[in-house]
């Protein structure tokens, strides 16, 4: 009961804030929340599950495109479109993960790199279905029970997606499944000796986090009411990895810090370096790996210890 109230309190707080913000800041705010959602999922896959993947952002795109296509090209009802979108993410994730997690090594990293690259090609070449290079636009969220959700009210939907993702990941993390993922990350051979099916654990964690990314993508589809290929390219796939590394991989709070920081940084950097903030990100990541492998959250811990 107390727990439920706490979640509700956080929801009200996060969803209430945009009503105090103008249109522009509301837009920045909810995009930041989407990045946080993605980073939380990716942290579970990479930081806790120990798997490098470049397709997290592609699955975000699969979610976004699929809900738009199912709703407006195939004219399906919203609940069905959501279910089908998730199912599509799960199928693609299984097709990639089952072959590439059978062996030790970085096969999943490569396969997902190829998948992310291919995804943009499919979007560009998809003709009328995907709208080609221009993408799809001029649609709007169908009315739900006769209500058109928009502006700060739609931000509440995104807050819901974020908290749902966090809730699922926290529950999984504090269970045998979370421990199995960490065990597979730390020492696969010992994990197998403890009764853990290593390959299956990898496949499940990849599929699950990919599906969560897809759901976040569905929420994204109605933020700008347009989806187009350049957004879902490899740049952002790297960015999400960098967020988790800089924030502190394996820690939920680290993912949040990393996502907020790297999302907001370009706003401050662009007067200095134009659109080359990615160079700064690359240097940040290299620096983090070399001198602070526990990321910013590790530094926060260190400070706490020192001053308590």
């Amino acid at each position, binding site marked *: 009961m107390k727990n439920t109230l706490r979640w509700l309190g956080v929801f009200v707080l996060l969803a209430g804030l945009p009503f105090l913000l103008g249109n522009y800041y509301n837009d920045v705010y909810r995009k930041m929340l989407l990045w946080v959602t993605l980073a939380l999922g990716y942290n579970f896959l990479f930081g806790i599950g120990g798997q490098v993947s470049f397709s997290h952002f592609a699955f975000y795109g699969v979610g976004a495109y699929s809900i738009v296509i199912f709703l407006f090209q195939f004219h399906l009802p919203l609940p069905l479109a959501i279910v089908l979108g998730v199912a599509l993410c799960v199928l693609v994730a299984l097709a990639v993960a089952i072959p590439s997690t059978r062996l030790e090594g970085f096969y999943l990293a490569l396969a997902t790199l190829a998948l992310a690259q291919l995804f943009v090609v499919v979007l560009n070449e998809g003709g009328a279905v995907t709208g080609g290079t221009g993408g799809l636009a001029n649609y709007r969220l169908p009315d739900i029970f006769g209500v058109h959700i928009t502006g700060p009210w739609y931000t509440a939907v995104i807050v819901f997606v974020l908290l749902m993702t966090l*809730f*699922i990941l926290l*529950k*999984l993390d*504090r*269970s*045998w*499944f979370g*421990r*199995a993922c*960490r*065990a597979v*990350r*730390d*020492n696969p*051979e*010992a*994990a*197998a*000796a*403890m*009764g*853990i*099916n*290593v390959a299956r654990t990898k496949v*499940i964690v990849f599929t699950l986090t990919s599906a969560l990314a897809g759901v976040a993508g569905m929420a994204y589809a109605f933020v700008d009411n347009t989806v187009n290929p350049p957004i879902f390219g490899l740049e952002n796939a790297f960015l999400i990895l960098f967020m988790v590394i800089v924030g502190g991989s*394996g820690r939920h709070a680290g993912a949040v810090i990393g996502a907020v920081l790297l999302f907001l940084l370009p706003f401050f950097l662009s007067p200095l370096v134009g659109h080359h903030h990615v160079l700064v990100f690359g240097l940040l990541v290299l620096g983090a790996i070399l001198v602070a492998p526990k990321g910013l959250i590790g530094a926060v811990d260190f400070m706490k210890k020192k001053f308590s």
Partner: protein
Amino acid sequence: MNKTILQVNGLCKRFGGLTAVTQLDFEVGEGEILGMIGPNGAGKSTTFNVIAGTYAADAGEARFAGESLFGLAPHQIAARGVMRTFQHNRPFAGMPVIDNVMVGAHARFRSRLWNLLAESSFKEETAMRQKAEALVRFVGLGDLGDADVTTLSFGQGRLLEIARALAGEPRLLLLDEPAAGLTPDELARLAGIIRGIADRGIAVLLIEHDMHFLLPLAHRVVVLNFGAKIADGLPAEIRANRAVTDAYLGSEHAAAR
């Protein structure tokens, strides 16, 4: 003798042209400590890894509680109640001690992935955590449950290996040179722990290099040399067996040279 839990017949394992184990037969009963001894390269660890499913046997059979273990993957063997420790400590470095032990209980959780969000799984988690805490105390790491595993001493790491394996509620426990590198104090404690495990009715297969540790502890001893069994009997018989001491001391000298 107690009811046999593991029966190994005609086990053979080759690596390329090298024969590691040949025509090995032995059995372990419930609550029994079976020592397996032999010089380096005698095939002890190979036998062990074949039973645990890390290597596939070339011939022979290993039946655990009536079921053949060959063809099963390591995680399936563990789920059936055969748990192991490693010759070199292999902790899960990113987790505290207690969580390491709880990983050992992986196959004992009843809640499935889809009901992890439910309250019942939380109760199971709590119950399992209490069991794990009891095991941490049992092996003598009582106040280290929340410690970072990377801060443990080598000897504490050995004990963690055992606690982790016990968390899987094994009916057969495979211990791979648990005494290696321990201080005399730690050795005495370890012997007590292993006796305690056997008293719970768990079969223990104990590989050991050090005869002085093993002989007082084991109920029965199998001696390997060059991949073949050269003796099998009570510790007193082994101690008196000339062939054993010759083979053993001979190779000890060779190893020291």
